[in-house]
């Protein structure tokens, strides 16, 4: 029911959606999130990105996040893809897709997976741009978003 993939290759949102829906007659709700490379960050122009990760730990971390989402909500399928390596502006970095019989569960789980991924999955962004290469700084707002999931 879970598909988790850390990869260099691009993904196609239409194909991922088709995989969430194929022979899935009981889940009326699908919530999807896609994160893409923006052309600026903290006010500085960005021309591309290199995504580093911790290979041994990454999939374990993502699997735990998805498993925790399943203990909180009634979910059908979950697909979580995250790219690593070099990417240009406008390319997609991450895809999270969740199906459920219930709209609220699909939305909540999709957002929960992204919020936790943003604060604990071992990925790091190195941006190339106007001012050379810069390691992206973590955001306080990402840590604050986690608080809404604290029981």
């Amino acid at each position, binding site marked *: 029911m879970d598909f988790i993939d850390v990869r260099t290759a691009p993904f196609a949102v239409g194909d991922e959606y088709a995989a969430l829906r194929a022979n899935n007659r009981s889940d009326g709700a699908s919530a999807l999130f896609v994160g893409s490379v923006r052309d600026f960050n903290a006010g500085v122009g960005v021309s591309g990105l290199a995504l580093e990760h911790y290979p041994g730990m990454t999939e374990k971390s993502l699997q735990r996040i998805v498993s925790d989402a399943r203990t909180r909500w009634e979910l059908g399928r979950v697909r979580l893809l995250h790219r690593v390596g070099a990417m240009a502006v406008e390319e997609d970095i991450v895809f999270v897709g969740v199906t459920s019989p219930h709209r609220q569960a699909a939305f909540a789980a999709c957002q929960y997976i992204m919020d936790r991924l943003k604060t604990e999955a071992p*990925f790091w962004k190195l941006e190339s741009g106007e001012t050379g290469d810069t390691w992206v700084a973590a955001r306080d707002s990402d840590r604050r978003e986690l608080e809404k999931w604290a029981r």
Partner: protein
Amino acid sequence: MVKVLFFASLRARLGTAEHCLEDFSGSVAELRNRLGELFPDWQAPLQAADIQAAVNQEIAAATTRITDGDEVAFFPPVTGG
């Protein structure tokens, strides 16, 4: 032997992705200290408040015990997604 990995801006600052230590056992905090003693230039970056640690690919606390054969990683806050 304990294998220590460094990632992202910390790796760039230390100038290495990996260091192996013979004969270490102790806590994560003690490993930070030991590495700072061995390589004085590493002390400040490794002791920075936002540097996190993982032991055997699980997030670890300062008090987590490390024993022979473990894989330890130090890294800055994550920024994926």
